[in-house]
């Protein structure tokens, strides 16, 4: 059985740190505590706190516990994200190169549909993963912005201008970036 063990690193309550000499004491949340100079650390946990931690650790150890806060890195999913982001970017590269008579939505509709399918497929894969709560809003934002840009292209009465395409391209690159960075951090 996999128990989610929350260790000292993400202990949810503020911990008070006392400096052994003259520096003032203060309270912080524990992830930040790990970055503090060691001089602040020795008196931070009481004996009771130590006992609680040890009981939890023993419990974990004998129930095959593993600390799982984020999903495992998935190389094929990462590759799929890279490919879909590249296909999305390619639409705007092609639009920038096309003259104004070749920028109608109808000429790009199939490619938009293909990318939309890929985004939906990536979203489903993330939904099926454990510890996905921070990933899903990123994917929802990708979907929202992709569909918004697609609709704007579709409803545009005249051809898209160079300036508009450049802005769409920049925003497209930037709405994929958080997902790529987040997935890459799982390696």
């Amino acid at each position: 059985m996999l128990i989610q063990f929350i260790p000292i690193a993400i202990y949810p309550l503020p911990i008070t740190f006392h400096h052994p000499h003259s520096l003032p004491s203060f309270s912080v949340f524990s992830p930040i505590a790990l970055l503090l100079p060691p001089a602040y650390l020795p008196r931070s946990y009481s004996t009771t706190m130590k006992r609680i931690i040890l009981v939890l650790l023993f419990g974990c150890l004998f129930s095959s516990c593993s600390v799982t806060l984020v999903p495992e890195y998935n190389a094929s999913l990462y590759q799929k994200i890279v490919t879909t982001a590249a296909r999305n970017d390619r639409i705007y590269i092609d639009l920038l190169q096309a003259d104004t008579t070749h920028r109608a939505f109808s000429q790009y509709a199939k490619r938009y549909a293909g990318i939309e399918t890929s985004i939906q497929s990536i979203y489903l894969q993330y939904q099926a993963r454990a510890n996905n709560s921070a990933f899903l809003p990123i994917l929802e934002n990708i979907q929202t912005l992709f569909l918004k840009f697609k609709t704007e292209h579709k409803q545009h009465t005249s051809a898209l201008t160079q300036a508009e395409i450049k802005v769409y391209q920049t925003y497209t690159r930037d709405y994929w970036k958080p997902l790529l960075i987040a997935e890459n951090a799982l390696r």
Partner: protein
Amino acid sequence: MQFDVNETLAGMMGAMQKQFSKDWPLIKSAAHQFLQARILRLALLAELRLTGQLSSAFFAERMKDEQLLLQSELHAITIVTLAAAQRAARAALQVFTRAVNKALPI
């Protein structure tokens, strides 16, 4: 061999600090990349708006999109930080397991 709680906890804290200091540049780099991208994006948007190449409606829509981008970036930083916390916690557990195994009479 005797199991020393204080020594084990100190070892665990040390392992966590070491792992966190290794991961800290990753967190900083992610935040830096998002900030840089935002600066470039807003500069482009301002330039195109000021030269009359973008309509006010288009500009206003992109300003709304900025909120979604910021939300995604903050979630990504959370994930990078959680991944670092996970690695730190696993490093601490490793120290603990080693200490217990060492203390066990064979």
